[in-house]
């Protein structure tokens, strides 16, 4: 059996005197995809932010490889890549500059041993892969919403993290783009990676898919 990476035990979260979820037990292992579903306002983003360790507005336990997440934060962040709800890029910077900064701050899970020239080459390649060839050096505010989203998604190529946590990655992205990302997820999972994702999209080609649905348990 594959090793459990991230585990939540008896997770409880309330917001504005409303219970979002309770007794939530999640566990994901290597090579698995967990799709979180639920209507708007059911707490999908909240759950994902809790799982990244950003939010601590919960009760219960979160374990990373069997250890409490708060205690192993550093090593968790070496292995975890989160794409949030918001664009995650600076409008004033070019796509390349954005990725360069990310390459440095994500350095814990950057493909090791790359010099700055190699990295520049890498970044150009990566931007080409997400279909932004020729847009490397224009400020991001001139890009369309979908293109900006692609700059953000390009970070997945930059990273060697095992666990990806993706919050609505398909927003504002066209059909081709969706196919590209699905392939990317598929490859990641096949090589032993793990993905936790919220989306309304059907992930047909993705192996080892499990789903959980939030917002079904009404408060008693």
């Amino acid at each position, binding site marked *: 059996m594959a090793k459990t990476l991230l585990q939540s035990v008896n997770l409880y979260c309330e917001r504005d005197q409303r219970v979002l979820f309770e007794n939530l037990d999640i566990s994901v292992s290597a090579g698995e995809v967990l799709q979180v579903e639920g209507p708007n306002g059911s707490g999908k983003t909240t759950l994902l932010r809790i799982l990244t360790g950003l939010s601590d507005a919960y009760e219960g336990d979160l374990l990373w490889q069997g250890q409490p997440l708060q205690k192993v934060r550093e090593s968790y*962040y070496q292995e975890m890549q989160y794409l949030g709800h918001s664009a995650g890029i600076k409008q004033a910077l070019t796509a390349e500059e954005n990725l360069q900064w990310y390459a440095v701050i994500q350095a814990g899970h950057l493909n090791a041993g790359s010099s700055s020239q190699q990295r520049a080459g890498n970044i150009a390649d990566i931007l080409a892969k997400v279909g932004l060839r020729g847009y490397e050096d224009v*400020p991001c505010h001139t890009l369309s919403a979908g293109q900006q989203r692609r700059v953000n998604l390009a970070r997945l190529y930059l990273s060697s993290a095992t666990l990806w946590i993706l919050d609505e990655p398909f927003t504002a992205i066209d059909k081709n783009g969706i196919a590209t990302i699905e392939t990317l997820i598929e490859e990641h999972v096949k090589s032993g990676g793990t993905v936790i994702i919220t989306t309304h999209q059907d992930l047909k080609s993705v192996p080892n898919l499990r789903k959980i649905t939030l917002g079904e348990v009404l408060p008693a």
Partner: protein
Amino acid sequence: MSFSKLFMATLKRDMTIAFRHPSDLVNPLIFFLVVVSLFPLAISPDARYLAEIAPGVLWVASLLATLLSLDMLFQSDYQDGTLEQLLLSPQPLYTSVLAKVVSHWLLSGLPLALISPLLALMLFLPSSAMPTLMITLLLGTPIMSFIGAIGAALTIGLRKTGLLLSLIVLPLYIPILIFAASAVQNAAIGLPVLGHLALLGALLVLSVVLAPLAIAAALRISLGS
């Protein structure tokens, strides 16, 4: 990953962004200029009188200018989601926070200190006090950036942050104001200022060491809901 690489990357990023929005750079300076020129209009254009209040006026004005520039520190990073990525980085938050505050100072406090002699002339500050004025500003504005950043980090994502931020931060600025303004006053009447400057320097060291810890904690708290 070395300390300097991470520090420089964030510093360079923030500086690049600021230079692509030049108005953000110039606005605090204009504010400083306008506030300082209000005092002769409100009180009196009499040179002797102005020279007497000049240290206090210059210092209060630069304090307010710093205060108003604080919201550019984290607010836009918060809105576009890069701040949460910074918090999720495996790199030490201390370093990146330090880089952000230093770039804030380079973009707000340093220019203030550099143009202050010009405004001091308008207020007839004795030229013997000019070097002290610049030194106090060079020492004091980074402290204000550091302490202000704690307040800015605590108020991220709240509505109507401007007034709240001033309420939180201004009382903490009082010691800097006292030491710095009285140093300039002393310099103007020919008294020694080394003690004041040493105290400001000590405060600067203290804030460089401690403030990033508080800022990092505050950022995690503010993004944690």
